[in-house]
């Protein structure tokens, strides 16, 4: 086990799989140079220009070409640089990638991994900070992966690269420097199984992606105040570990969902609704969601700080829920 950064964990997982499977290749802007974050560092030297394809700024075709190449049997990694640019390829993603298998009655196998580093990132303002993962849970055909640790990033990426489904892989870009232990040989981590980050009986906190470290920190602070939180890091949003969440809430009676995304229309609403549908209202004492207000991400640090979820807000929300 080596202690490495999250971005390096992603790099090693990709490397391992590309060495194993010659049909895997990468297309995206600046990937020959190693990618914007170094996640493909050294790949051009090892795999050459046919498998590390540095592309024009042509997002529609980056996405659509990835799909076409999958339809003839290769396994492209579609690198979107950062999430926000996938807006330039939304027809290709939602109308084509997500639907071809179904529309064509099972003939198509759109085995692509679409990497989209997402979320708030050092005062990058509204067009470079979005977290819209909930959108894609609403689109049949897609798998949605939202890791938060180096080990999970590596293991989930391996699974993604062996999947026959189109996988949206949301790299938590703000956590790229985060370090953690990752095994030399990276085993796949199945989709749909939450990581039980902390155990407790007082309330259930469900969370994912870049905000997880702060939720874990908050849980520590809550423990010091006598509140024992059960923390589930979902790791994937479709499929998602409904069983683990329902079991936890059945035990604690209280559910707090924390995500970096805007609360309104976020996946927190889905989780709350589903848990209540499954458990009924009698077994559940209180629910709450914590996310950003329905406001674009502003540039200035005090404005960004005012809106974004952080440890203190998680603590406050949990304490309020315990009173509720």
């Amino acid at each position, binding site marked *: 086990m080596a202690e490495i950064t999250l971005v390096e964990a992603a790099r090693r997982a990709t490397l391992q799989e590309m060495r194993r499977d010659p049909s895997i290749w990468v297309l995206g802007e600046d990937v020959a140079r190693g990618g914007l974050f170094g996640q493909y560092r050294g790949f051009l030297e090892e795999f050459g220009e046919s498998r590390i394809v540095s592309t024009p700024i042509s997002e529609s075709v980056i996405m659509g070409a990835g799909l076409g190449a999958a339809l003839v049997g290769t396994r492209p990694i579609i690198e979107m640089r950062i999430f926000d640019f996938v807006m330039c390829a939304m027809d290709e993603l939602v109308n*084509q990638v997500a639907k071809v298998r179904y529309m064509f009655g099972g003939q*198509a196998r759109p085995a692509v991994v679409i990497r989209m580093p997402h979320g708030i990132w050092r005062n990058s303002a509204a067009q470079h900070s979005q977290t819209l993962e909930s959108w894609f849970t609403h689109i049949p055909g897609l798998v949605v992966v939202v890791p938060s640790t180096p080990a999970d990033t590596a293991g989930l990426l391996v699974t993604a690269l062996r999947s026959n489904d189109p996988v949206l892989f949301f790299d938590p870009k703000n956590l790229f420097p985060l370090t953690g232990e990752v095994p030399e040989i990276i085993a796949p981590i199945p989709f749909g199984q939450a990581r039980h980050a902390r155990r407790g009986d007082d309330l259930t906190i469900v969370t994912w992606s870049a905000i997880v470290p702060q939720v874990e920190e908050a849980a520590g602070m809550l423990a010091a105040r006598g509140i024992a939180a059960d923390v589930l890091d979902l790791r994937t949003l479709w499929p998602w570990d409904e069983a683990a969440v329902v079991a936890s809430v059945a035990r604690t009676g209280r559910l707090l969902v924390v995500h970096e995304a805007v609360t309104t229309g976020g996946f927190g609403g889905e989780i709350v609704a589903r848990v209540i549908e499954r458990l009924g209202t009698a077994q559940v004492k209180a629910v709450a969601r914590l996310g950003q207000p329905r406001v674009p991400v502003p540039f200035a640090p005090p404005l960004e700080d005012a809106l974004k979820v952080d440890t203190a807000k998680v603590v406050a929300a949990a304490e309020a829920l315990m009173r509720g």
Partner: protein
Amino acid sequence: MTKTGDNRARLIALYTMMCRIRAFEETALAAHKAGEIPGPLHVSVGQEAVAAGLCLNLRPDDRITSNHRGHGHALAKGAGVAGMMEELFGRAGGHCRGKGGSMHIADFSVGMLGANGVVAGGIPIAVGAAQGLKLLGSDAIVACFFGDGAINRGPFLEGLNWAALYRLPVLFVCEDNGVAAFTATASVTAGPGVAARAASLGVPTVAVDGNDAAAVDAAAARLVGEIRAGSGPQLLHATTYRLTGHTSTDPAAWRRAADVEAAQAAEPVSRLRDRLLSEGVTAAELDGIRGEAFAEMSAARAEALSAPWPDPAVAWEDVQDCGAMQGAD
């Protein structure tokens, strides 16, 4: 066989395919009018020479992508008629099990990677298929069919630039029928046209009378050969005319009678028939081909009409492997 015989056989093959496409389209139109086919229907009556002439030059392992007006492309590439007709009818035996319908016809078994309900939607897919084939070491090529309306969408620029850049084996085929839905494309297209656009993106163009099947065949033969030999992408600009409305319910009433009349005179099936007659093929033989095509499609229609509907349970299948059934309770 002599060269002339070869040539005649080829023309007859073209004629046969064109009759089959025409018959398929007219049969589908009639079925749609009779309420047998649900949803929208875009037929390619008048444009048969492009599909037939082009696809005659493709190998089974070559691929095509298509657009919303894709029946002819699919048939010419070898898609089974029963599967196509059943797909239009939404029946269980359709190529897409009734999930796609006319606008999403696909038959991967013959290299037909799908029609597309989004204008220009097939361009990025074609380019990527070619890149994938190249990576796999195949010498198969990809033909990408789109209409003149598609050249005003961004993916046209992105896709042609991309194909030229990586020297991909793609034959872009612009079926220029002069109209996009209800708008004359000349009225919304600035500059000198598709060939200039393609050239500016590094893709050379060959122009052809898209109603002259033999000319399309000859141009395609050359282009497919060159592309397979590594020329990089090229574009075939085929001028043609859509004899029917945009959809089956559009009477295309806004067109000038003179234009329609001229178009009828230039329509590709009778043109090829005239040529074959002048080359000594008998009317009886040609009538036979045509009759057989219509009989084939009538039979397919009748079979489709009595074919079983898909089991409703099929609706849940083929969404995705992982997470498909979550929430299905």
